């Protein structure tokens, strides 16, 4: 400990570099480099600002993205049938225009899910602190940026001050070594981590991902990891940026250029934890031990390998956990001990800020090429951004999807949280590449099984939850 007293984690370094002042023992005033806004968690913040007679302090440090409430119909128009949603989008536009905030509106070529769009546009850079009124802001850790979600009151606070009153988190490191088996993806890794540490296992922590298996992931896979660690309660994730991150960012619209690019790259070399930095928790995982996972319950840690059975509550000695299991199984309409592959699905959904990137679509297309969706399944692909949609079309992926019987839709958050009209009906069972299987999340009474995009594709073809390793193609 004494030798490590001055050693800092990457998280500590980013927080220190953004500390405007210490407020008290526990809090600092933290500077926010970029603030991302969406139409559903910002309206009351803008109204609050106006009521108090305040203005946005640094308009150019803010970006607005329409993503949560918009329809994803295959033909995009500005029309939104839901009058409340339409008003939200309209109000968002009014506010962004009045305050001089750049906004990616519904018909903008850059529109998409905020956490897909922000990296895509080169807005998130290593070493930054980024806040957004959305819990999945942890995604930007994949680029070496500290991102975290905030509520609407703090959105207003950031708009007015470009800062936040921040209580630094404790440090946790998750090292993943070894090699992923065929058919196993970053989604399975993060689901395995959540399964192991539980949905509050990282509450109060910032998580640094490290290890050779993490370094071997492409940037999209790293985003999947950082994005979904919030489901274990983490309020921030980081990863030391490497050449893959630099290659990902170079040439993107908001990425630095020329002399700034060179200076930035030199600076980013220092964005790593010191060798003797201390982590209050240090977990290890062997990627080779991870199998494709699916959730059986209503909490993201309630998962099993696809080849396994749903748990039997009678084997759970703890009465509270037993009751929780029984309740989850009842909601999900699953018999105790039922084989996961015996569950017949009604819907298949590929998309979301967790798994709506081009790499995710490619993984699904590999499974779907030359195959058909089971006749009883309604299957949808909602690209993570309009750019992802165009890129996928350039590669011909949309042809594979539509030939297989998937709907090829426009971008948005869509059925991940079902704020728009993409909703599960009561009792409908859905294989979903999203991040939350909460009761009612995708529609009242809807039954969500979380899994990787390739696994969703396999399930869509089989008509039942299925093992992508036996369906093949992945």
């Amino acid at each position, binding site marked *: 400990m004494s030798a490590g007293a001055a050693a800092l984690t990457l998280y500590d370094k980013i927080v220190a*570099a*953004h500390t*405007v*002042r210490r407020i008290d*023992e*526990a*809090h600092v*005033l933290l*500077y926010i*480099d*970029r603030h991302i806004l969406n139409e559903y*968690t910002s*309206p*009351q913040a803008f*109204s609050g600002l106006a009521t108090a007679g*305040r203005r946005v302090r*640094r308009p*150019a440090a803010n970006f607005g993205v329409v993503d949560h*409430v918009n329809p994803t119909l295959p033909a995009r128009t500005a029309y939104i049938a839901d009058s409340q949603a339409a008003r*939200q989008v309209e*109000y968002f536009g009014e506010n962004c225009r009045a305050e*001089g905030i*750049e906004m990616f509106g519904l018909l903008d070529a850059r529109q998409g899910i905020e956490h897909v769009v922000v990296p895509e546009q080169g807005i998130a*850079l290593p*070493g930054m602190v980024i806040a957004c*009124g959305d*819990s999945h802001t942890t995604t930007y850790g994949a680029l070496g940026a500290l991102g975290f*979600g*905030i*509520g609407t*009151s*703090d959105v*207003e606070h950031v708009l*007015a*001050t*470009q*800062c936040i*009153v921040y209580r630094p988190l404790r440090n946790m490191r998750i090292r993943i070594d070894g090699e992923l088996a065929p058919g196993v993806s970053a989604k399975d890794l993060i689901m395995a981590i959540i399964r192991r540490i539980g*949905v*509050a296992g990282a*509450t109060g922590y910032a998580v640094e991902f490290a290890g050779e298996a993490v370094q071997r992931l492409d940037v999209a896979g790293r985003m999947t990891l950082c994005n979904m660690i919030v489901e274990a*309660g983490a*309020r921030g994730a980081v990863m030391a940026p490497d050449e893959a991150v630099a290659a990902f960012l170079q040439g993107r619209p908001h990425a*630095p250029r020329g002399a*700034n690019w060179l*200076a*930035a790259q030199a*600076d980013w070399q220092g964005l790593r934890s010191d060798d003797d930095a201390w982590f209050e928790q240090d977990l290890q995982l062997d990627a080779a031990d991870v199998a494709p996972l699916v959730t059986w319950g209503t*909490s993201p840690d309630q998962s099993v390998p696809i080849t396994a059975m749903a748990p039997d509550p009678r084997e759970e000695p703890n009465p*509270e956990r037993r009751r*929780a299991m029984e*309740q989850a199984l009842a909601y999900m309409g699953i018999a105790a001990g039922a084989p996961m592959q015996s569950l017949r699905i009604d819907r298949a959904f590929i998309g979301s800020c967790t798994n709506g990137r081009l790499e995710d679509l490619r993984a699904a297309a590999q499974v779907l090429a030359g195959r058909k969706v089971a006749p009883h399944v309604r299957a949808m692909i909602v690209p993570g951004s309009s750019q992802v949609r165009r890129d996928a079309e350039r590669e011909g992926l949309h042809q594979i999807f539509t030939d297989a019987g998937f709907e090829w839709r426009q971008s948005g958050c869509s059925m991940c*949280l079902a*704020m728009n009209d993409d909703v599960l009906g*009561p009792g409908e069972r859905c294989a979903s590449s999203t991040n*939350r299987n*909460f*009761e*009612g999340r995708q529609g*009242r009474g809807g039954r969500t099984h979380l899994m990787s995009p390739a696994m969703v594709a396999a399930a869509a073809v089989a008509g039942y939850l299925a093992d992508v390793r036996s369906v093949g193609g992945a």
Partner: protein
Amino acid sequence: MAVFTSVSGVAAPLPQANLDTDVIMPKQFLKGITRDDLARGVFFDLRFDAHGAERTEFVLNQPAYRQSRFLVVGPNFGCGSSREHAVWGLSQLGIRAIIGSSFGSIFQDNCYRNGLLPICLLPHEVQRLLVLCADADCAQLRVDLLEQMVELPDGSRIAFSIDALRREDLLNGRDAIASTLQFAAEIDAFEHSHWRQHPWLAPKLAGE
């Protein structure tokens, strides 16, 4: 923001673990542009059946608990989505404090921002309150933020600790933005040096 000093009232037990903000405030209530009219949305699927009728078995629909001022909750209450609507709705329903062993961290911040007091106790203390409050005749509590304690009907007290800064905010109903704006000159100075050291971080408006 509402000031919190001492509040007395009924506490309703909600022992289920991991009650997430989707359950606390479902999606159909997130489409407004104001903070108003969210009381009906709170625990909507638990409080109302598919036809909109009250589910009599749900604790907040039972006569003894309809006027609850407190919730005693299971672990990790408020996990999931950042939606502050969950907190606005709970406040509008009359809830002033939530007592549990752990909370979703964005939800907890949102509570502080709205004068709703999240109280963290040890699991066995929460368990004691859950058992107590399950009997409507014993569910009357007093929560005192000055003294940092929960008082039970028999006069016994459970002390709680709370972040000092958040306590001050709640006791005074302080405007957090005004507090931060006192440091506007320091923020300016920070920006100046931050951007000099990292010029690529300086934001530029489109076309600049």
